[in-house]
């Protein structure tokens, strides 16, 4: 990989732009140990690539390793992680008697801890229905069929607050998304999308996140595009971003007509991308630039 030239750094300094991110090109050596209410927890943010990625990647890295010092620092203490506000909001929603007949998530599921472990194996094929499910599908299944409400928007704030709450219940658990059996056709479909060069710029996910991770595309330090941190708090948007939303953004940036958040295509893509992170910890709510 090439390294940034001194000249461009110098130029940025002259403009008074903070440079903590421009001085490195590889994933930053660092350990994600988080101060939580229940003491410290250390997450796996770097691991040997899962067997199905043989020939593509040797080591997988959380996107956390590619962010600047202060952004990484915010994720090291729940007190500094701006995403935790949304987890609290998700908790309020969980307990609220918001169903058509006053049902609440808590009324049927007890505490959110009942969801522990789920995030680490999502997306998955539902054993009963045989359908490919992302977390949003499970939530909306309950919202519509068990609470008598209109479906929540796939990328709505209400949905993302709940994603954050449920994801937090698996923080520290190792991602283990099934790629075989009933998942196999979705894995293949997602993989095909991952390597397709979309849009007028003719770029695939792999062009940026497999061939060029560690490099800079303009000011952006490219990561492997892992979803282990999702939903993430994105400083640029001052809010939560779900994996489905991130996919929309990345495809749009190739001057392409995107697929919709929650579409069959992006659900299959999420299964495939999540499986590329098998071995990394679920981060609960990551912090990104």
């Amino acid at each position: 990989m090439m390294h940034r030239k001194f000249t461009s750094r110098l130029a940025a300094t002259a403009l008074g732009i903070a440079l903590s991110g421009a001085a490195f090109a590889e994933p930053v050596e660092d350990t994600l140990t988080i101060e939580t209410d229940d003491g410290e927890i250390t997450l796996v943010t770097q691991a040997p690539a899962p067997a199905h990625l043989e020939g593509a990647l040797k080591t997988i890295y959380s996107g956390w390793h590619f962010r600047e010092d202060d952004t990484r620092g915010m994720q090291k203490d729940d007190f500094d992680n701006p995403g935790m506000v949304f987890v609290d909001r998700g908790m309020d929603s969980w307990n609220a008697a918001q169903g058509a007949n006053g049902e609440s998530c808590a009324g049927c599921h007890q505490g959110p801890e009942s969801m522990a472990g789920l995030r680490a194996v999502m997306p998955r094929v539902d054993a009963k229905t045989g359908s490919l499910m992302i977390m949003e599908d499970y939530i909306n299944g309950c919202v519509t069929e068990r609470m008598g409400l209109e479906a929540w928007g796939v990328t709505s704030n209400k949905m993302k607050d709940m994603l954050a709450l449920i994801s937090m219940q698996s923080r520290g658990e190792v991602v283990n998304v099934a790629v075989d059996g009933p998942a196999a056709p979705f894995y293949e479909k997602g993989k095909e999308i991952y390597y397709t060069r979309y849009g007028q710029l003719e770029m695939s996910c792999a062009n940026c996140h497999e061939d060029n991770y560690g490099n800079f595309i303009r000011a952006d330090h490219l990561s492997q595009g892992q979803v282990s941190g999702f939903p993430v708090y994105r400083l640029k948007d001052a809010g939560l971003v779900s994996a489905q939303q991130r996919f929309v953004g990345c495809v749009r940036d190739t001057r392409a007509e995107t697929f919709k958040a929650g579409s069959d295509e992006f659900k299959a893509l999420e299964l495939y991308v999540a499986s590329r992170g098998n071995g990394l910890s679920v981060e609960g709510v990551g912090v990104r630039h």
Partner: protein
Amino acid sequence: MHRQLWLASVVALSAVTPAVSETAPAAVAYEEGAVAQSLSGQPGDPESGAKIMTTNALGNCVACHQIAAMPDVPFQGDIAPPLDGVADRYDEAHLRGIVANAKMTFDGTFMPAFYKTTGFVRPGNAYTGKAPEGELAPILTAQQIEDVVAYLLTLKE
């Protein structure tokens, strides 16, 4: 000399039919990646070229390439070879071909084709994420390609 004569006639004509000498994207003839004639029929303006190369929605060449001759452009990417001295490595025709469609020179390259309108998978309406309305325009116009080529020709070591 031949070229100057030809240009003179273009200038003479241009008052009446401005686009007559422009080569459409589909009509560009690549010879081993190179394109001999100006796509717009006009010479390029290097100053405009430098602007196009550093503007996000236009060339944004600095997203991938470093150019030491542009020290005040911040955050130059490092995905592709630096363009310093590129005019020593390629002649005008080849630079034109690379900017218009680099895939004709570097098979399967990551570099986008800036003067091409067909053969895409789900092309969009620029950066809106929506389907295009009507026919797709190339990312850069014929004259913008010429302007970029004119700037690249100044990059001698």
